[in-house]
């Protein structure tokens, strides 16, 4: 390992601009003549729009336009779509209701956009928005997924009878039923996975600019995947053809999934720019973020896990209702299906599995992928059930898991996935050692002396990421391929630009991608620039989510580098009058192996561009492109153990220690990986005992600000103790599995298992707030 190569703890190149306030976000963008948009949103969860009167608003100072959904429709702008087709068990396609970027007949959740006001200043736009007079006829609302298909419940979309979007299954139901019927012990649980608000630090924003002279649109937007945004806005929303639309996602302050999707606001800003003749910027305020960013999770699940007399799992059956909110967001159908039920085998060898998922509409914000996306839900179901089974069977939770681990690879599960590599026992051992599992009883007794209840809980998770082999996801309903592209441009002075379809919104790509180039070519990372986030600069790309930038994005860079290296070697061999096969690239030079003959990298690059002395027939220049389509998913896995102390008098939980032992395969920059794990753990631990999104029965969001929605703070969290095990994946050239989501996927059950262990009551749901824990302690005492 070099000082800046793979494995080095290089400080992040991008942090200088971020921590000095020099980052450039969408809200920093200024276009001459730019005006400001404010959306008028529905205050009702469910209502018919009877009348929209914009007269008074149009007469307000500074107002340039007040535009409605009817005008948008008249201009041919399309409805928002969900890009992943799911078929129900009976073969019928999912029932997708219409989602107009501006509602014109009916509103279906609090925050639904109805009218956009464009004015000289944001303040004027806000004043005018208050003057828009909309007459609603209120309808009854349904907010809980568990109630959505009941008789007599309000219907959201005429397309979806009983609010049912699909009733989908994966696995062999008969085999699972038979296995459970023959089981010596069956553990049954009802599990709720709580709804979450993503809360990226930077709120969503869009700036639409229509250039009349060129008949061309530019959209600056807070996106994790600007090329996908361009594709979808062109192909489905008829904003403009792709060659007339440039999408730029500059610095983006966190996404966690919520910025994958195309929302109404960016479409409306582009359309409104043409309509009004001025560039139109919109920046969400925090309340809009709470109301309208795609929420995460929200599952109601029943699980049955059967064991034989030797405590081997023989069968698993899972029945889940997934609340998708008022409209189907871009990938909302994939999250509770192919990103969820495919992981129900966990780290275990289970012969028979069946997962049934019913997705439903409710009068709440749309729900889509949020850090982990489906895999945290699967892990929570499995790992709470394993811990509960161990308690019921009276065996050690660690040994019950170990007994059921998959131990040889490749391993084909009954739910599509084929695990390529792993060593689950290694992570379990590492985590147990790190937390001194054996010494827990002593620590518990010490806590008891102080009147405190101490508990320990674990979670052994697996996830599928490196998303994803295009043909495989295509066969499962995906509307896109999930490859990645890269272009490596070697400049005439030898400096390098890597253009990538991945998008960094906190992940540190400018550093890790440059470290890969350093490893291969030996050039310093300061002479490598990573270019991303602009459809005019970077060829087609698929963006960043599903822990894919390393496993897929960097693999594409490897493929492009291989082509660059091959050509560079040819040039060097020609200059050195050596055989091409004898040339090696080392420390920034091309050398004849075993000799001191070499040509420095920059000199070779200059030769490529002067083209004075190139091999016969070779094209000048040095720039190569690659598209990489992964052969398989990758399977990061690990073991998390949490130790807590509960104050029985108040129900307050103190997370004393949290140990994470992760196998991400090969790692580029351990410091950045640790940062990703810490962030993921903070979100997962937050879900477990702090964060909960609540609507009241009428569909009003009760947790619409940080006064009521509890985001984790530093003092809520312990100092995480992380370690890495390594079984490189054979599925990509770098042996990397991905690390972005693991923390959020594996941690919630570890926390809840620890708290329920402490209080001796397993009837506890997330978030385990002090009140809930106190009530559970109280229930145990009685």
């Amino acid at each position, binding site marked *: 390992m070099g000082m800046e190569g793979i494995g080095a703890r290089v400080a992040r190149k991008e942090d200088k601009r971020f921590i000095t306030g020099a980052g450039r976000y969408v809200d920093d963008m200024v276009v001459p003549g730019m005006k400001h948009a404010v959306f008028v949103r529905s205050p009702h969860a469910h209502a018919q729009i009877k009348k929209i009167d914009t007269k008074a608003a149009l007469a307000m100072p500074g107002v340039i336009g007040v535009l409605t959904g009817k005008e948008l429709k008249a201009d041919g702008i399309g409805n928002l779509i969900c890009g992943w087709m799911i078929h129900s068990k009976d073969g019928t396609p999912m029932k997708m209701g219409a989602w107009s970027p501006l509602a014109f007949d009916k509103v279906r959740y609090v925050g639904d956009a109805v009218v956009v006001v464009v004015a000289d200043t944001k*303040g004027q736009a*806000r*004043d005018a928005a208050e003057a828009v007079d909309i007459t609603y006829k209120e309808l009854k609302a349904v907010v809980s997924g568990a109630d959505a298909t009941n008789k007599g419940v309000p219907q959201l979309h005429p397309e979806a009878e009983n609010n049912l979007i699909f009733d989908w299954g994966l696995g062999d139901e008969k085999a699972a039923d038979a296995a459970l019927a023959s089981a010596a012990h069956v553990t049954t649980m009802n599990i709720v996975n709580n709804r979450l608000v993503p809360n990226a630090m930077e709120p969503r924003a869009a700036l639409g600019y229509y250039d009349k002279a060129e008949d061309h649109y530019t959209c600056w937007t807070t996106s994790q995947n600007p090329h996908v945004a361009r594709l979808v806005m062109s192909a489905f929303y008829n904003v403009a053809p792709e060659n007339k639309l440039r999408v730029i996602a500059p610095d983006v302050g966190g996404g966690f999934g919520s910025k994958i999707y195309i929302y109404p606001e960016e479409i409306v800003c582009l359309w409104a720019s043409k309509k009004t003749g001025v560039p139109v910027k919109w920046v969400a305020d925090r*309340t809009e973020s709470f109301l309208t960013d795609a929420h995460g999770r929200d599952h109601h699940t029943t699980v049955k896990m059967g064991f034989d007399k030797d405590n081997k799992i023989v069968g698993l059956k899972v029945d889940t209702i997934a609340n998708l909110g008022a409209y189907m967001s871009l990938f909302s159908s994939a999250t509770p299906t192919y990103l969820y039920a495919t992981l129900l085998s966990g780290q275990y060898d289970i012969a028979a599995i069946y997962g049934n998922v019913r997705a439903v509409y409710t009068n709440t914000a749309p729900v889509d992928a949020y850090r982990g996306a489906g895999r945290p839900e699967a892990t929570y179901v499995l790992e709470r059930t394993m811990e509960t089974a161990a308690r019921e069977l009276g065996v050690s939770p660690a040994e019950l898991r170990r007994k059921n681990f998959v131990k040889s690879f490749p391993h084909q599960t009954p739910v599509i996935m084929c695990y390529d590599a792993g060593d689950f026992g290694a992570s379990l051992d590492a985590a147990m050692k790190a937390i001194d599992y054996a010494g827990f009883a002593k620590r518990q007794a010490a806590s008891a002396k102080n009147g405190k209840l101490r508990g320990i809980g674990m979670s052994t998770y697996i996830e599928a990421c490196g998303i994803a082999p295009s043909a495989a996801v295509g066969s499962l309903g995906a509307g896109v391929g999930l490859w990645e592209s890269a272009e490596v441009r070697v400049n005439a002075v030898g400096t390098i630009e890597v253009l990538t379809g991945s998008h960094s919104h906190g992940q540190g790509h400018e550093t890790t991608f440059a470290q890969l180039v350093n490893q291969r070519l030996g050039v310093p990372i300061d002479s490598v620039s990573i270019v991303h986030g602009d459809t005019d600069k970077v060829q087609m790309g698929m963006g960043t989510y599903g822990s894919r930038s390393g496993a897929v994005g960097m693999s594409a860079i490897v493929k492009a580098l291989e082509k660059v290296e091959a050509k560079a070697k040819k040039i060097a061999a020609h200059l050195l009058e050596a055989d091409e096969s004898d040339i090696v690239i080392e420390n920034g030079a091309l050398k004849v192996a075993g000799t001191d003959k070499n040509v420095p990298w920059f000199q070779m690059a200059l030769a490529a561009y002067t083209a004075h002395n190139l091999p016969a027939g070779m094209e000048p220049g040095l720039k190569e492109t690659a598209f990489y389509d992964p052969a398989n998913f990758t399977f990061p896995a690990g073991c998390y153990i949490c130790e807590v102390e509960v104050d029985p*008098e*108040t*129900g*307050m939980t103190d997370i004393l220690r949290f140990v994470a032992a992760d196998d991400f395969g090969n790692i580029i920059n351990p410091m950045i990986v640790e940062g990703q794990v810490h962030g993921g753990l903070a979100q997962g631990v937050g879900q477990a005992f*702090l964060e909960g999104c*609540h609507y009241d029965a009428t569909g009003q969001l*009760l*947790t619409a600000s*940080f*006064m*009521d*929605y*509890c*985001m984790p703070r530093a003092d809520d969290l312990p100092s995480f103790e992380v370690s890495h095990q390594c079984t490189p994946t054979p599925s990509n050239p770098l042996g990397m599995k991905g690390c972005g989501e693991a923390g959020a996927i594996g941690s919630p059950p570890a926390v809840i298992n620890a708290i329920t262990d402490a209080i001796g009551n397993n009837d506890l749901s997330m978030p385990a*707030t*002090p*009140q809930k824990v*106190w*009530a559970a302690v109280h229930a145990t005492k009685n």
Partner: protein
Amino acid sequence: MYPVNYHRAKSVAEAVKLAKGEAKYISGGMTLIPAMKTRLAAPSDVIDLSHINELKGVKVSGKTVTIGAATTHFNVAHDEKLAKVCPAITHLAGEIGDPHVRYCGTIGGSIANNDPAADYPAALLALDATIVTNKRSIPAAKFFKGLFETSLKDGEIVTAVTFTAPAKAGYAKFRNPASRYAMTGVFVAKTKDGVRAAVTGAGDDGVFRSKEVEAALAKKFEASALDGVKVSAQNLMTDLHAGADYRANLIAVMAKRAVAQANG
């Protein structure tokens, strides 16, 4: 935020003169400014009291404590003379909000707003403090009137708070996990006139004295005196974060911890 006229008053007399129409007094602005930003409050004018020197500072004379209305929580928390005669109040001030809030927020602003989850009202009620305004002196028990309501009249400005330091006092609160305001806070004081215990964050009509806690502590000013004491859940608040039963439990638990703190 709607456009608003800002006035910086140099004296209480000037502040009174400036108050017209839909004007509001502002001190630290810790509640008013967020409400204005979300357009939930829309005063035509704000009159800033936080630069009036006569309203600032802590005076301790024997057992008599006077805290100027525009004294920040930070300055209360770090007043050494006050810490000697009534450490419970400096402790309380040091636990309000976060450092930003403590540098800006003031005691006068806090009690004039009378947020049902604010800390100071519990202390002032338990200490039987007097709230001094530009017009009169009001006992704490008459000053705090329900949720966000006080007996202040239009144009009346809190200028100081004064109380006699108790023999012993303590304050313990359980924070709302999200807002970190007191979900239940109990201030106990052993004064020459007896034991007083006031509760914030829990009552459905704002700060109040707990009869159950006071009766138990009157017998013995020890945490153990509260063992087995049941606080009634009647008239307690129920919200997303805590039900009345849970708050009733927290009153007893926080009272115990406050007494333990008072006894050092």
